[in-house]
């Protein structure tokens, strides 16, 4: 860099020193100026004096002349103070020679310019001089050529500063230096990425550069070139921001394009957006703000408006993406989660927008809130789409063996996943469903409000938990319809048990859903399950156990053997039949399976054992026993243990 840091602060110190404490030199200068003015009367005299006294040739350098200029300027300001008091303007005589000399020297410097402290100081003097000269009344001595000359030099000098300002902004960014050797660039980026240095990601500047920028900006603004300065700054920073976003992979898509995008592509864009948005709000925006504040440290209103303008554009663009995504009609509930991810990102960031002051800040907050609302509303629509897909599942093919229906699995797994976003979904349903009803002209409130009264239970009912209830009710009634497809009532009950059990297990496995649905609801489910169990048992096993009753076997205290034979025969037949069909039935939940087997055994085995104990004696020969007493109680037990295995090939049996 061409800037020479330490030297500059030196000179500023010196400059301020001369400004504030008048040294004994001031008086000497006053003398000189007076001489100068006197000299104006006789030109020859004046020249001599200048040569000899004011700017002696060997010392005729910028430094000396500058000192004189400073003294002259400070004499002006004291004079001005006096003027104010006396309310009487005393015309000041113009030190033509001094100014011309100064102009010569600065011009010489401009031919081979270098922005260092003395250059900045010279610009500052030029600015003061131009201001003073411009304020002179036209009738006063009329130094128009001089004004033109100094004005021209001033313009060139500031032009130069402007260029310097731009170069600094563009080429001294942190992370920029390694781009000079383009081959190394890739390696460097990868390296810095792997280090994961987040601070370094902000395309800012080193402290030295920032202070140079500050100095240059100060002089430009002081010289009346505020607009140019701001323009250059705004453009450079906006380009830097653009590059940062590009590096993150964020691309500007039109809403129309996003609308037509395939989900896979959109999903990628959403992930990039989340990354970019977080980066902007955690690193870039605050970085830009700090940068603007340091570069324009003396002009808070400028730094404010530069920062707002820059970030407003970026933020609105980022929010447009949200609007566009929220507008896409995602007819699939799975996509909800990406939406919720975006929603959370936005939600967590909106409070951080205090960075933006004033109206612009309010506007942006509103924009962000609006975008959040749209996402919320879209999320609700997607979630309620689950209802539609449950309603739409009207397949007439029963699941073999009464096993858990895919719809149950899908719904429950979906809910379980959704409930990982429980808090967000609660918020979404609380904030955005109400809102939608309130401000919509198109939606007469139909059944939505009703559901609040339907559940007069002790658990607190949130809009989301009500929604969840509604989904569960829909699922239940759908399952009931599906259960009726089975011709076998027992199987129908097994189906309900399987699905009910699956639902209950899923809910127990997720504290979030459990909390949402409440204990009462779970208890109700459990008792429903018991009911199915009873129904099943009655349906399947009471007939079988009926074979084992004593009734009709004893006639006048004697056992009627043909009837007994018939009983055994029909028991065997019935049991074989049950075994054959029900071992193809499916109960994959181990606990339920064993509960069922245990309860069946508890009903059948004691009855069989006692029947056998009482009546097997009536068969005399082994052959008869073998023929009618086909099973020992242990065999029955083994067979019961084979039920609900989903095993289509029934086992051997002699």
């Amino acid at each position, binding site marked *: 860099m061409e800037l020479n840091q330490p030297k500059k602060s030196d000179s500023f110190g010196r400059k301020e020193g001369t400004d504030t404490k008048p040294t004994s030199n001031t008086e000497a200068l006053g003398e000189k100026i007076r001489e100068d003015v006197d000299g104006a009367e006789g030109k020859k005299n004046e020249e001599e004096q200048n040569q000899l006294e004011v700017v002696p040739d060997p010392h005729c350098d910028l430094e000396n002349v500058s000192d004189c200029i400073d003294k002259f300027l400070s004499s002006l300001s004291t004079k001005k103070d006096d003027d104010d008091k006396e309310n009487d303007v005393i015309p000041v005589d113009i030190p033509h020679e001094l100014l011309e000399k100064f102009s010569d020297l600065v011009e010489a410097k401009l031919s081979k310019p270098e922005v260092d402290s003395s250059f900045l100081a010279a610009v500052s003097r030029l600015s003061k001089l131009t201001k003073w000269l*411009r304020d002179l009344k036209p009738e006063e001595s009329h130094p*128009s050529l001089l*004004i*033109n000359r100094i*004005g*021209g*030099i*001033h*313009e*060139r000098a500031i*032009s*130069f500063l402007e*260029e310097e300002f*731009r*170069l600094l902004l*563009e*080429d001294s960014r942190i992370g920029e230096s390694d*781009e*000079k050797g*383009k081959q190394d660039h890739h390696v460097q980026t990868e390296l810095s990425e792997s280090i994961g240095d987040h601070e370094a990601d902000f395309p800012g500047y080193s402290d030295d550069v920032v202070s140079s920028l500050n100095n240059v900006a100060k002089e430009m603004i002081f010289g009346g070139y505020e*607009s*140019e300065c*701001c*323009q250059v700054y*705004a*453009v450079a920073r*906006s*380009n830097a*921001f*653009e590059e940062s*976003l*590009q590096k993150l992979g964020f*691309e*500007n*898509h*039109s*809403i*129309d*394009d996003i*609308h037509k995008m395939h989900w896979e592509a959109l999903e990628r864009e959403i992930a990039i957006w989340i990354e970019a948005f977080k980066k902007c709000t955690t690193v870039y925006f605050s970085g830009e703000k700090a940068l603007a504040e340091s570069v324009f440290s003396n002009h808070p209103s400028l730094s404010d408006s530069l920062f707002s303008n*820059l970030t407003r*554009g*970026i933020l*609105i*663009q980022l929010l*447009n993406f949200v*609007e*566009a995504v929220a*507008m896409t*009609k995602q007819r699939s509930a799975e996509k909800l989660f990406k939406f919720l991810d975006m929603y959370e990102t936005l939600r967590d960031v909106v409070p951080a927008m205090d960075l933006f002051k004033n109206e612009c800040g309010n506007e942006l907050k509103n*924009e962000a809130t*609006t975008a959040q609302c*749209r996402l919320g*509303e879209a999320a609700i629509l997607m979630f309620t789409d689950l209802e*539609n897909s449950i309603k739409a599942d009207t397949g007439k093919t029963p699941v073999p063996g009464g096993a858990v229906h895919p719809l149950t699995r899908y719904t429950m797994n979906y809910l379980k996943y959704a409930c990982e976003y429980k808090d967000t979904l609660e918020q979404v349903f609380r904030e955005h469903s109400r809102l939608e009803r309130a401000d*919509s*002209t*198109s*939606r*007469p409130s139909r059944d939505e409000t009703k559901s609040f009264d339907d559940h007069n239970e002790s658990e607190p009912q949130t809009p989301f938990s009500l929604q969840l209830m509604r989904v569960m009710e829909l699922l239940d009634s759908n399952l009931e319809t599906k259960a009726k497809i089975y011709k076998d009532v027992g199987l129908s009950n097994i189906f309900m048990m399987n699905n009910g059990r699956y639902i209950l297990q899923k809910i127990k496995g997720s504290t979030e859903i459990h909390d949402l649905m409440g204990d009462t609801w779970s208890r109700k489910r459990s008792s429903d399950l018991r009911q199915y169990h009873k129904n099943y048992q009655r349906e399947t096993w009471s007939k079988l156990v009926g074979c084992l009753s004593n009734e009709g076997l004893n006639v006048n205290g004697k056992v009627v053997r043909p009837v007994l034979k018939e009983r055994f025969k029909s028991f065997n037949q019935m049991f074989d039949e049950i075994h054959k069909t029900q071992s193809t039935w499916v109960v994959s939940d181990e606990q339920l399976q064993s509960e069922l087997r245990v309860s069946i055994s508890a009903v059948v085995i004691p009855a069989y054992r006692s029947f056998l104990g009482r009546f097997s004696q009536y068969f005399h020969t082994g052959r008869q026993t073998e023929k009618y007493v086909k099973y020992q109680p242990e065999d029955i037990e083994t067979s019961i243990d084979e039920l609900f295995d989903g095993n289509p090939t029934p086992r051997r049996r002699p």
Partner: protein
Amino acid sequence: MRATDNQGSFLNRISIRRNQVVSMDGNHEQELEDLDLFQKHVADRFSDLLSSTSDDDSVLSIAWLRKLLDAFLCCEAEFKAVLLMGRDPSQISKPPLDRLVPEFLDRVVKALDVCNAAAHGVESVRHYQKLAEIVVAAFEQKPIGDGQVRRAKKALNSLMLTLEDKEGSTHKSAERTWSFGRRGAPSNKDRSTAGNFRSLSWTMSKGWSAAKQIQAMSANLVAPRGGESSGLALPVYIMSTIMVFVMWALVAAIPCQERNGLLTHFPVPRQLGWAQSMIVLQDRIAEEWKKKKEKNKLAGLLEETQRLERLGLSLIEFSDSFQFPGEAERLEEVAAQVSELSEICKKMEEGLVPLQQQIREVFHRVVRSRTEILDVLDQGGKMSAPTM
């Protein structure tokens, strides 16, 4: 604002009546009356817009564009009321609306992009304003000297280049003049397209074309005929036409990405009462556009921009021939031009931000309505789910 009051009472009336009337026949009569009223209001608003061009706001001035957007917002609110309020959802999911409404919604999506492009365009105009302000600041200093002329000229050259550059066809960016006096080795960064005054936030996606977008919006815009012309197809058509017109006017006025081949005409049946003023306005804007296109100056028809351009050219001429201290007569002329320039800057300063906000408001409003219409479509016809 008069129009808004109007609209409030109109909405109330519709909602009260719809709630009272149960019988289908009565409903139909009311509906016809609502439609008439809607058409009348559209006609009134556009004739107001037309007549306001004769006083101080000429067509496509910032002030006029703001009126246009106001009118759009009012028409849109009424349209939504006519289409949706208290209506049985099944009505808008039946033919021909099951086709027309999704087409309308598709237009809406495209309009949103135009809104964004126009908002970016306003940002460009703000940039012109900043450059013009530099020119004003330079020339307002007395006496005008070489330095100030140089300063003004630099800003003017940038201004003229950015004005030309906005077509997206010429990429010789303003950088060259702006970086006048640059020394040292040029940096090896690729700056071929970015241009110095373009920034990311104000560009659309690659390949996006305002002209094509407008074309697509108007492609299937056909006035309803026969029996359809008395039903809901009519307000859908009217609103579509208004939307296409407003977006087209924005694109014509404000620099937008890729306007080459912008339509100069889209069909609006001349016999329709509500469309008369709009047709006149359309012809007038189209005429201007053609003229500009012939001259190959397409920074936009925004009145303020055009004046900037005119003044800019004249001031560049002045700057080129300037020799200190300049001729008194010429200086006087310049002073007048500078004060005109300053007045334009003031107008821009006052009007551009509100215009931008208003464009944003249109954006949000249109998004909102789209959602509401979709909701009703959803309710009305779960079977014929719209693709959009």
